[in-house]
């Protein structure tokens, strides 16, 4: 069957199971858009190409599948860069398709020509330029395999306009992916495996460090069996949240810079750390010289390049988390951990008393209250997509996720502006799920143009703006480390409710704690998108906090009365 390259592209995506594409048209990709119109693919018109990549990313993370973003050459492609880097740092399988000027003028600085494969080389898992219509199908199929296999990541396919316009034979069976055969490495030998088993069975104070890899691998069940077999307490990275139910008594919560004190102290006191699908990021280790000094370390990780990168380990089990855990579990001898677990519970000490949730309602609205109310009202069942900053950490602390893939956030790159578009993508992936976008007033203003996308697509999303009038996390650093010199962090914002109304979106402003629950309830009951503008305490800070570069146990703890500490009229 003879088809144009553009038709082949759409047909290949359709056969690969793609339903939605997030994109923005332009000259060099127009042939594909023409073919899109005749295909069954649904195109979501974004308002900025960064939004398209975040949507594809959110789609991939919520669905466990692959997200597809599309843009034209030049500025369309360069606008995708932040979104691609976000997906790269969080190992998210996104396929980006960009138009490119005709192969005959490549390299001539033609209108809207840019070397996007050159630009994205360090931030993609792979990228490729296609100049022949006949290569499009195979290349796309290879891109999908690369994006999803091993440690996932973004792949960019740059298709020249003449390749889109030319015709070629299209035969699905004749264009199977043909990737260079890799050497099969024997991941770990029996000696390494035996050493890990011995460490697992002799540890007195073990802690599991669970990361994103548990979910990427689909290892939730194997992970739970492993945890139960060894009675291991579990600490989670930000992206690991959801891989093990928050309500489980063995789940300690999030570790790291804004992890609860008992979690970080348990790690520091442990004699064995079992890292599963995580990469010892500086935000979870603090100062490496003092990190878990008394602990032996086992690293279960699919990416060999992560082994001994930041933390030197005693046993490295390179492989898919599920496979490795399934091999390990039968070897685990069940141990009574009550002494160790009781000790960790004691470490909680007065943390619970200091917790803002335990303090009386003074009428002041705190972000932590809003998140906690949201958790209660949604019964912990919503998919929450957060942006970056204070609200992101409060969400991680106060929204207790019991199911995987229900917290979607930019962890590695820390991309402000991620939440709204990623939330739109997540809603497309899970149309029957309740999706909440939780975002600060700073990050929201970076990509709020996507409100128009919501309206055009008639989707039902819930948006909670945690509005404190500051770039809150940066303000917090200025408060702690720069003597409260708030340079460039006070932030003027429009009336978000009025703004939402202007887009045709229902909105409400919430200023007191007593209104919070009812506002959330009303938003949930609405069958359309609702935006809630929560005007929260302005100079509230996220506790505990390990200052950047400090030891993990060296935390700035919650003040004894955060209400007095932060309320402006105290």
């Amino acid at each position, binding site marked *: 069957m003879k088809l144009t390259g553009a038709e082949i592209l759409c047909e290949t995506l359709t056969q690969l*199971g793609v339903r939605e594409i997030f994109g923005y048209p332009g000259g060099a990709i127009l042939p594909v858009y023409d073919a899109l119109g005749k295909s069954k693919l649904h195109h979501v018109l974004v308002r900025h190409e960064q939004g398209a990549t975040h949507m594809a990313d959110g789609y991939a993370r919520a669905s466990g599948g692959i997200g597809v973003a599309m843009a034209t050459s030049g500025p369309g492609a360069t606008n995708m860069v932040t979104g691609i880097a976000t997906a790269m740092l969080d190992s998210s399988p996104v396929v980006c398709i960009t138009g490119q000027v005709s192969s005959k003028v490549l390299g001539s600085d033609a209108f809207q020509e840019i070397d996007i494969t050159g630009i994205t080389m360090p931030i993609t898992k792979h990228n490729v330029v296609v100049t022949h219509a006949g290569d499009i199908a195979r290349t796309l199929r290879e891109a999908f395999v690369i994006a999803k296999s091993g440690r996932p990541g973004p792949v960019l396919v740059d298709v020249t306009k003449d390749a889109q316009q030319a015709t070629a034979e299209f035969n699905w069976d004749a264009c199977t992916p043909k990737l260079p055969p890799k*050497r099969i490495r024997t991941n770990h030998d029996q000696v390494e495996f035996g050493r890990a088993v011995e460490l697992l069975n002799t540890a007195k104070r073990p802690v599991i460090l669970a990361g994103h890899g548990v979910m990427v691998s689909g290892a939730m069940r194997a992970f739970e069996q492993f945890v139960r077999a060894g009675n291991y307490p579990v600490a989670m990275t930000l992206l690991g949240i959801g891989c093990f139910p928050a309500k489980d008594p063995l789940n300690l919560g999030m570790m790291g810079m804004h992890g609860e004190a008992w979690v970080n102290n348990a790690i520091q006191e442990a004699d064995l750390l079992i890292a599963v699908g995580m990469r010892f990021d500086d935000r979870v280790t603090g100062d490496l010289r003092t990190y878990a000094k008394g602990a032996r370390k086992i690293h279960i990780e699919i990416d060999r390049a992560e082994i001994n990168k930041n933390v030197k380990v005693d046993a490295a089990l390179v492989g898919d988390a599920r496979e490795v855990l399934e091999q390990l579990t039968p070897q685990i001898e069940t141990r009574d951990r009550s002494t160790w677990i009781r000790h960790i519970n004691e470490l909680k000490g007065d943390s619970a008393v200091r917790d803002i949730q335990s303090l009386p309602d003074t009428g002041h609205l705190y972000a932590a209250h809003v998140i906690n109310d949201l958790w209660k009202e949604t019964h912990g069942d919503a998919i929450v997509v957060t942006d970056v900053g204070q609200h992101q950490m409060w969400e991680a602390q106060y929204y207790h996720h019991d199911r995987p893939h229900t917290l979607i956030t930019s962890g590695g790159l820390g991309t402000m502006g991620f939440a709204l578009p990623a939330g739109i993508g997540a809603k497309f992936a899970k149309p029957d799920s309740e999706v909440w976008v939780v975002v600060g007033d700073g990050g929201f203003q970076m990509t709020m143009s996507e409100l128009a996308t919501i309206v055009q697509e008639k989707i039902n999303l819930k948006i909670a703006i945690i509005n404190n009038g500051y770039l809150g996390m940066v303000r917090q650093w200025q408060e702690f480390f720069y003597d409260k010199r708030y340079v460039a962090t006070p932030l003027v914002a429009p009336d978000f409710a009025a703004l939402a109304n202007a887009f045709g979106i229902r909105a409400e402003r919430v200023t007191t704690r007593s209104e919070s629950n009812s506002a959330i309830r009303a938003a949930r009951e609405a069958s359309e998108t609702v935006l809630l503008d929560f005007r929260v305490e302005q100079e509230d800070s996220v506790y505990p906090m390990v200052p950047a570069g400090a030891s993990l146990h060296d935390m700035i703890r919650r003040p004894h009365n955060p209400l007095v500490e932060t309320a402006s009229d105290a």
Partner: protein
Amino acid sequence: MQTLVAYVENKPGVLNRVSSLARRLAINIDSLTVGPTENEEIARMTIVAHTDERGAHRLEASLEKLVDVLLAENISGRALLERDLALIKVAADQQNRPHLMELIKVFRARVVGVAPESLIIEVSGTVDKIDGLLEVLRPFGVLEMARTGRISMTRGSDLLRPPLLDLESSVGEPEVTKAK
């Protein structure tokens, strides 16, 4: 200094990916040689990098993550055969020419170009040998030099071979559709 061997697909852009990766890891490349293998679709690289064992591991593992890299291996510390080749243009007048010829003989180098005021000397061998010759030639006046950079091969039965290119990929296609 660490020595790595990489087999890569012989196509445009691969060298850029490899060197860009070293740049991203902040590893300085001392020399990088690349040439086709007996299979013209595959090229072999010898990379000599200024880094420690940990850095070499990271480079090796990261290289192997590149789609176009079939195999990468840190061969530092193994029994190696190493060769570097240099062309050295050295000032030579009638008086010192015999002395130069003696040195060339000692180093098993040879003269491949003769001009009234200079000689071009070709020498191959280990880096140390070439450095040694260079040292003794310096007083005569080294006018120009070109070096290939090191190529390395493990000795004996320690074989480093890439998987065959004609093998179909064993990776199955992923499930793109929504998770049920």
